[in-house]
């Protein structure tokens, strides 16, 4: 099974500070994608950042960057210059090929609170 583990149920950070959310995954696949999704109180699922497993370079999207360690099966999200609008649930997700096509498995999420 392709499992995703987020070991931090809740985190808090002050505005303008940097925070790192952890994610590990278990797979025997060599080709896959990893994602971070954000779910604000509105409940809408929003893609934050994507990483292709075959790429060694870590993905970056503005204030969001990842530290992808393929051998360690680790995929952490760093949020720089945290803003109040970053308050949300953050889900790490693993996209992989099954016998029936591609599927996306999520971790249990990390609730991030950004305080003034």
């Amino acid at each position, binding site marked *: 099974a392709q499992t995703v583990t987020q070991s931090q149920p809740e985190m808090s950070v002050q505005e303008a500070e940097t925070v790192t959310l952890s994610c590990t995954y278990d797979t025997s696949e060599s080709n896959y994608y990893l994602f971070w999704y954000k779910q604000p109180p509105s409940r*809408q699922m929003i893609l934050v950042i*994507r990483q292709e497993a075959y790429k060694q370079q870590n993905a970056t999207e503005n204030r969001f960057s990842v530290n992808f360690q393929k051998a360690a099966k680790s995929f952490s999200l760093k949020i720089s210059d945290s803003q109040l609008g970053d308050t949300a649930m953050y889900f790490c997700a693993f*996209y992989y090929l099954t016998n029936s*096509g*591609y599927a996306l498995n999520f971790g249990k999420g990390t609730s991030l609170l950004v305080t003034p």
Partner: protein
Amino acid sequence: NAGVTQTPKFRVLKTGQSMTLLCAQDMNHEYMYWYRQDPGMGLRLIHYSVGEGTTAKGEVPDGYNVSRLKKQNFLLGLESAAPSQTSVYFCASSYSFGQLNTGELFFGEGSRLTVL
């Protein structure tokens, strides 16, 4: 652009009743997914479809059935609802794997189902 639309947004059922959740997408996506979200559990995949007329089981398929008779629609059915099926249900869609597929899923706004 409607994107992914779920109907209904809210529903209350009694144990043993049946109902169908409808998901419609207007992006010509091949892949469609149904997830359930429960507190502390993240999003868990129920069933998915990689094209019209196809369906596949996800992580938690028991108690649910699905159909994909038209490419744009993916129906999730509960034949005999149980309190354990009280949850928020999310539909998502994506392109099939290939040139256009970045792996990103596009989500609906969710449907809150309560089974008494």
